[in-house]
């Protein structure tokens, strides 16, 4: 039983990753693909933050009378990763906009039909 609780976070993370990946692969609409990517990435963020947590600790900001802090390093990493994620999203969505204006559609199967697939 304790195993379930101790790993619950990890398993949810795994489920979220699977959902994200599933959306990326199956989505026909490019915007939805981008959403899927974001979900996938957020799941990874969650994994990192989970490992930084110390039960009974507080946020890593120096405070009087606190001895147990959670680990600041994963937070830093994920701050960076979130920024990377939004950067990718922005570029991805601009590509989607350009695809829309070039092909008139952002449904994958439709624009694939419009070109000689290589």
């Amino acid at each position, binding site marked *: 039983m304790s195993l379930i609780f101790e790993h619950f976070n990890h398993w949810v993370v795994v489920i979220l*990753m699977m959902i994200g*990946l599933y959306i*990326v692969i199956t989505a026909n609409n*490019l915007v939805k*693909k981008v959403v899927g*990517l974001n979900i*996938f*990435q957020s799941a*990874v963020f969650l*994994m*990192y933050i989970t*490992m930084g947590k110390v039960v009974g600790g507080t946020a890593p900001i120096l405070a009087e009378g606190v001895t147990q802090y959670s680990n600041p*390093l*994963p937070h830093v*990493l994920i701050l*960076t*990763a979130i920024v*990377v994620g939004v*950067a*990718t999203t922005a*570029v*991805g969505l601009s*590509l*989607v906009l*350009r*695809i829309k204006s*070039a*092909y008139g559609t952002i449904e994958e199967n439709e*624009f*694939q039909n419009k*070109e000689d697939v*290589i």
Partner: protein
Amino acid sequence: MFEQHLAVLPVLLPLIAAPLVVLINKPRAAWLLSTLFVGACVYISFGLVSATMDGGALRYALGGWEPPWGIEMRVDSANAFVLLTVSVIATLVLLFAKESIASEVAHKQLPLFYSAYLLCLAGLSGILITGDAFNLFVFLEISSLATYTLVSLAADRRCLTAAFRYLVMGTIGATFILIGVGMLYMKTGTLNMLDLAERIQAVESHRTINTGLAFIMVGVSIKLALFPLHMWLPAAYSFAPSAVTAFLAGTATKVAIYVMLRFVFTIFGAGYVFEQMNMEIIVLVLALAGIFQCSFVATTQSNIKTLLAYSSVAQVGYIILGVSLVSLTGLTASLLHIFNHALMKAALFMAVGAVFYRMGSVQIIAFQGLGRRMPWTMSAFTIAGLSIIGVPLTVGFISKWYLVTAALEQGNWLVAFLVLVASLFAVVYIGKVIEAAYFKEPSEDADATKIKEVPVSMLIPMWLLVLANIYFGIDTSLTVSAATAGAEALLNGSSLVGGVQ
């Protein structure tokens, strides 16, 4: 002053140049500035190669924080060698790009193009020389974002879908690497590569580490386009602007391969990856399958850029094959081929870019009769093509020689034979183009009188590469010793642990 910062400058110079280029916002000045900075990178890379030749490593603690608390850059003979390859190709392509890109990208966007180019280079250099697993991810993303931009700048609308597909695949790959690094961090509490290598031994057989290895390998394999995860590459290479293709073909996948080497040999250790996990069998089979499948597909293409793109995937297979042999000769062959393949593919894509510059098409029909009209371009293509085939006196032969020798060393005669047989596919697909260029009459619709040789500024970098193809095919002492030193550095981590700061 200069010496002290040698190990960080290859990243820093392009990183600083990229915003400057945007501020300047004049295409010509932007080009000049980029060329200066990238040229400086070549100079520095040379310095790094010679500084690490004796097997030592240069370490540079950023922010003055000693690792593992801070991030460090670490240059040893392996990454210095790849870094040199990348910066040389980057410089030559930049020279080539001046005319080529101006004809393919809108004038107003040129400074943005150069900025993205510099960012991409900075990202690639950062990946190569960083000694921190997470920092690697950051630079991976810098280079990837810049690459998506570069690919999408072409005039053909298909570049957009290609870039998007690349973006999706690339992001999944990078996220996989992030997952893997997270798992390693979770078990060891550190991100510094050396520290990881040391601490990972205690937890080696844990399932989390196994999974981490799997995710990193898959993630990197996407980035380096290992069969069957290569599907993004042909489209991206086919529709990107010519200069971008030349640049990417010479550098991007090479750097990803280096990442794989770094993770396998430095962090996980060859013993764990190959002896415990038996990765080499999977990798060997995939590499061979990739070589054959993609070489075959290449022979069926009529778009020459696509053809060469498939050839690139096949060549990646050769490099990975060398890794999977897990020996000094095998690794040397891989590192050599990283360098050599960069030389040949960049030259080939430049030649194709030159044809596109004049003909506006890269279909095989556009090549017909070009042997007479663009003699310099087509002879460059021919020589670089012979190099891909692996004809003696070109670099292709050297790579092949080492690869087959490595396979025979292991007593793996079958693999050696298959490698040789696979190179025959190259005869077919290169021969196809050469035949069209020299022995076919130009197609009717092409206005034959207009077609002439491309400007000298495009020919010079192309021919420099071609001459390098021949020179390093004859005088192998420099490349072979550098590659051997690199392979040794990878194989025995000891030289990494030591080193000066």
